[in-house]
C-alpha cells in the first residue's frame, strides 16, 4: 500500500471511514474515498467519493467528485461529477453538481446550481463557467423540518452507548 502526500499536505492512503459512534471536528480531507456514519462538525473534502450514510450527521460543507447522501447534511454540497440524494437524505444547504439524482422521500432545502452548456432560454452559452441557478423548496412538512433542526444539537454525550 503506497502512501504519499499532496501539495496541500494531506495524506493519501486507503481512505477514511468515520464509524457510527465517532464524533469528529475539523477538516476531513482525503485523496481517496470517505465514508461517514457518525457525526462531523467541519468540512469534508475528497478527490473521489464521499458517502454520507443513514446514521451520519454532517454540519459543514461537503466536497467530492461523486457524493452520495443518505443522512443529514447541514451545509453546502459540491459534487464535481454526480450527486445522489437517497430517500433518507436530509439536506439543508445549497448543492452544486452536473448530474443530480433525488430519490422520493429525500428532503432538500436550499438552492441548486447545475453547471450547464445552455442558458435559461435554451441557447448555448459562450463558456462552461456560467451556471443556471434553480431554487427548490422542500416538500417536507413543517414538523419534520423543525424536528430535524432540534436534533442538530448533537454532542459528545450522544455517543455514549446506552448499554455495554
Amino acid at each position, binding site marked *: *500500500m503506497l*502512501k504519499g*502526500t499532496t501539495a496541500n*499536505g*494531506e*495524506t493519501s*492512503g*486507503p*481512505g*477514511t*471511514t*468515520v*464509524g*457510527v*459512534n*465517532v*464524533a*469528529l*471536528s*475539523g*477538516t*476531513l*480531507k482525503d485523496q481517496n474515498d470517505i465514508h461517514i*456514519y*457518525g457525526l462531523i462538525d*467541519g468540512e469534508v473534502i475528497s478527490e473521489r467519493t464521499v458517502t454520507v450514510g443513514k446514521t451520519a450527521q454532517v454540519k459543514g460543507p461537503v466536497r467530492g467528485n461523486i457524493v452520495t447522501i443518505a443522512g443529514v447534511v447541514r451545509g453546502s454540497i459540491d459534487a464535481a461529477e454526480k450527486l445522489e440524494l437517497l430517500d433518507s437524505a436530509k439536506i439543508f444547504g445549497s448543492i452544486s453538481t452536473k448530474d443530480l439524482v433525488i430519490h422520493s422521500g429525500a428532503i432538500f432545502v436550499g438552492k441548486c446550481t447545475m453547471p450547464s452548456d445552455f442558458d435559461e432560454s435554451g441557447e448555448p452559452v459562450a463558456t462552461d463557467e456560467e451556471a443556471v441557478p434553480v431554487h427548490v423548496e422542500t416538500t417536507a412538512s413543517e414538523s419534520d423540518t423543525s424536528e430535524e433542526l432540534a436534533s442538530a444539537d448533537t454532542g*459528545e454525550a450522544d*455517543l*455514549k*452507548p*446506552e*448499554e*455495554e
Partner: protein
Amino acid sequence: MYYYILEAPSNRAVRQTYQRLRDTLTNLGIAGEMVASSPARTPEELTVMGLEKGYSTIVAVGGDYHINQIATIVMNRAVLGIVPINASKQVTDLIGVTDIKAAAESLKFRRLTTVSTILVEPDLPIFLNAEIIPPKMAKISLVIDNRVRAFAYFNRAVINRSLEIEITSTHLTEAKKLFGLFEMGGNVITSESHFHGRSIRIVTDPELPLLVAGKPIAQAPVTLRLLPESLKVITRRGTVS
C-alpha cells in the same frame, strides 16, 4: 554476509527448527553468523553488535515481538531479513512466506521492499501493528495531523506501520420492556472507523497501554509519527507490500 539473531528457544521443538534452518541456510550458501538472544543479551544489543561488526543484513529469526525489537534498531541503517517462527499473519503477509525453507530461499534471492514505520514520540519506533485493547469499552480521542479531532468509544484500536488506525466497537442497545415484563429488542451495534495521517495523537480514558505482540511498549497519551520508507525488508519475489 548475513547476521542471524535467533529468539531464545522456548522448547525443544524450536531448537530442532533452528537446527533445520542452519542446515537449509548452509545448503543455500547463505549461512552467516548466528547468535541467540537471552536475558543477558537482548535482541537490541545483539543487533547493535551486528551493525558494529559491519553486517549490512540483519536477519530476525523468531516471533513478532523479537522481530519488532530488531527492526526498530535496523531501520535506516541496514536491511532486515525475517525468518518467521510462530509469527503472526501480518509478518508472513509482509514477507510473503510462511515456512522457514521458503523464508531462507527469499533471503538468498534478496528482493528488497521498502516499508514505512512509525515512531512513538519521542524516540520509540514500531515496525509491527500496535494495539490498544481496553478491558471494557473506553473513550479514545485522536488528533490527526493537527487538523481533525475525533472522539469515540471503543473496544479495540489497531495502528499499523503506515499510520493507519482502525477503531472498532461493539455494544448492545438497551432492550425495551413490553408491559414492564417482556424484554424486546436490544440490537448489537458495531462501529468500525479508519483514519490515517502523518501524525496522530492518541488519548484514552482511562490511560491504556500500547501493545506490540501483546506486550506493552508505551502508555497513552501518545503521539505517533509516520516514518515514510524507513526500513528495507527482504521479501519473497512477487510479494506486493
